[in-house]
C-alpha cells in the first residue's frame, strides 16, 4: 500500500478531517485495515455479471425487498426493477455491494438505510430518498422530492434534476450532488459532508448547520441562521470538477464562481453555551 503522510493528502487540505465536533458528538474514523468495518455478517457473495430482473407491478414493498435479498443470496449482483410505479420503501436496507437498476420512479423512502450498493434510477424519487445511507452511490436521472438524503453518513447521492426542500437535513457525511435547483432549508442542521447544488437554492440555506460545506452554482434566496459564505480555494475547485465528472453531470459551470457556504459556528457548541449566551451569539 502506498504510504501517504497525513499532511500530504488532499482531504486534509480541504479540511475534511478538521471537522471535529465537540460536545456530545464525537468523530470516529474507521481503520481501513480492519475488514470487519466494511462487511456485515450476513452479506452475500454476489457476482455483478449475474443479472436478473423483477417486475414490481404486483408486489408489495415488503415482498419485493425480501425478493431482492433472496436473489442476492443466490449470487445475483445486478438486479433490474421494472414497473416500480412510484411505490414506497423500495430497495431499503441493502447492506452490501449490488448493482440495483430501477427502470421508473420510486415513492417515499426509496433505497433508504443502504450501505454499499450502486443504484441507478431512471425516473423520479419521492420524499426522503436514500435516508440514512452509509455508503455506495445512488444516481437519479430526474427530480427528487423533499428531505433528499436526510441524515446520510456516507456515499454519493446524485440527482440530475431538481430536489425539494430540506435536502441534506441532519446530514452527517457523504456527498449530495444536485444538477438542478433545490428548495428551502437545504442543509438544515447539517453536521458533516458536502452538498453541491448546480442551480438555484431557496430560502434559509444551511440553517443551523454545525459543520460541512455547501457549494451553490446559482442564486441563493437567503442564508439560514449561522450559515456564512467562505472563500473558494483551488482545492475546492479541483474537488468539485472531479466530483461532478464522477456524478456524470454534464453542465457547464464556472467552479471558481460557485458560492461556498460553511458554518459560522456561533451556534456550534450547544454543550458549552448557556441559552442566554447562545441568544447573544445570534
Amino acid at each position, binding site marked *: 500500500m502506498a504510504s501517504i503522510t497525513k499532511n500530504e493528502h488532499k482531504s486534509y487540505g480541504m479540511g475534511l478531517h478538521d471537522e471535529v465536533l465537540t460536545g456530545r458528538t464525537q468523530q470516529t474514523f474507521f481503520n481501513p485495515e480492519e475488514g470487519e468495518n466494511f462487511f456485515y455478517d450476513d452479506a452475500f457473495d454476489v457476482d455483478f455479471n449475474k443479472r436478473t430482473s423483477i417486475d414490481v407491478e404486483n408486489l408489495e414493498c415488503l415482498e419485493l425487498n425480501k425478493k431482492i435479498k433472496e436473489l442476492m443470496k443466490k449470487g445475483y449482483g445486478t438486479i433490474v426493477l421494472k*414497473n416500480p410505479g*412510484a411505490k414506497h420503501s423500495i430497495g431499503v436496507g441493502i447492506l452490501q455491494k449490488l448493482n440495483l437498476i430501477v427502470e421508473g*420512479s420510486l415513492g417515499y423512502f426509496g433505497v433508504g438505510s443502504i450501505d454499499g450498493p450502486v443504484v441507478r434510477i431512471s*425516473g423520479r424519487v419521492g420524499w426522503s430518498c436514500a435516508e440514512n445511507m452509509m455508503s455506495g452511490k445512488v444516481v437519479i436521472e430526474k*427530480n427528487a422530492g423533499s428531505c433528499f438524503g436526510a441524515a446520510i453518513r456516507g456515499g454519493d447521492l446524485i440527482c440530475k434534476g431538481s430536489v*425539494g426542500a430540506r435536502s441534506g437535513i441532519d446530514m452527517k457525511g457523504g456527498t449530495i450532488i444536485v444538477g438542478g*435547483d433545490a428548495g*428551502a432549508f437545504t442543509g438544515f442542521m447539517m453536521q458533516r459532508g458536502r452538498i453541491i447544488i448546480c442551480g438555484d437554492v431557496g*430560502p434559509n440555506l444551511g440553517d443551523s448547520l454545525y459543520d460541512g460545506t455547501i457549494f451553490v452554482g446559482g442564486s441563493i434566496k437567503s442564508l439560514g441562521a449561522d450559515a456564512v459564505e467562505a472563500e473558494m480555494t483551488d482545492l475546492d475547485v479541483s474537488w468539485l470538477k472531479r466530483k461532478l465528472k464522477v456524478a456524470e453531470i454534464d453542465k457547464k459551470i464556472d467552479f471558481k464562481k460557485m458560492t461556498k457556504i460553511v458554518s459560522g459556528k456561533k451556534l456550534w457548541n450547544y454543550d458549552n453555551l448557556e441559552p442566554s449566551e447562545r441568544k447573544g451569539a445570534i
Partner: protein
Amino acid sequence: MCGIAGLIHRGKSTNVGGEMQKMLQSLKHRGPDSTGYALYGSGKSKDYILRFKVGENVKEGSSAIMEDASVYDARRDEVNNQISEAGGEIIKEEQITPYSFRYVIKCDDDLLELAKKIESVEMTEILSLGKSLELIKDIGDAQVVADQYSLNKFNGTHGIGHTRMATESGVDIRSAHPYWAYPFSDVSVVHNGQLTNYWNNRRALERKGMRFMSSCDSELIAVYLANKIRDGHDLEDAMRSSLSDLDGVFTYMVATKDKLGMAKDTMAAKPMVLYESDDLVALASEEVAIRSLLPHEIDTYDPYEGEVKVWQA
C-alpha cells in the same frame, strides 16, 4: 396525515369521477376515515345543482350522534319549504342516501339568502351549490363513497378530492373534505396540514358574516378564500394572500367552475407532486396517485415553498 389529489383536463370532458376515484383509492393509506370528491361537470347548466345532507352517516366508525332515520324526511320537507320561501323552484329531486340529497333548482343568484334559509333547518348542511360543482363526501374509502354515490360515471373537466385521517375533529361528514366556499357557487377546497392561527382567523371572518359548519381547520381556507373573492380579489391573488395570513404547515387545492389551483406554505412542509402536460394536469400528495392514471413513465416534480399555481380547464 390526509391525502389530497386533483386533476384538470384542458379543453375536454372525461370520466373525471372514475379518475378521481382511482387517485384517491391509491391514497387510502394516508387517510382511511372519510373520502370526499368535488367534481366539476360541463358547467353549461342554467340551473343550480344543490347537494346537501340533513343528518350524519352513523355507521360503525362514525363519531356522529345516532339519530332515528325518520327525522330525515321531515327535515327534507322543511328544506323544500325554505327553498320555496326563498323564491326557488325545485326541478329535480334525488335521494342518494337516507341523509343525503341532490336537487336541481331554479333560483336567482343571491345564494347567501338561499343558503341561510336551507341551513336554518336542523342538522342541515349544504355540501355544494353551483352550476358545475357537485361535492360528495362520506365515511369510508374512495371506492366505498364512489359506489354509494355512483361517481364512476361522472363526466366533467376537473375535480379535487381528499382522503381524511381524522386528527383534530370527529369522524363524520361534517368534518370531511372538500369544503364548499360558502356562499360562492362552484368553489371548493381540500387541504393537507394544520393551521395554527385557526381561531383568530375564524373569529375575524365570523365578524364579517361568514359561517362555519365544523371545527375543522381546513374549512377556514374555503371561508377565507370566499371572503377574499367577495372583497374583489381574483382567485390567484386570494391564494397568494393566504400564504402570509394563514399560519402553519399546509398544502391545499382549490377549484372553481373552470380553474384548479394549488398553494404550498413557505416551509414546504407538506407534500405535493405535480404532473403537467398540454392536455392534463394531475397533482397529489404522492406520485402513486398520479401513476394510477398514467402508468407509463412521466416527468413529475415537487412545487417549491410558497408556490401558487392556477390552471384553466
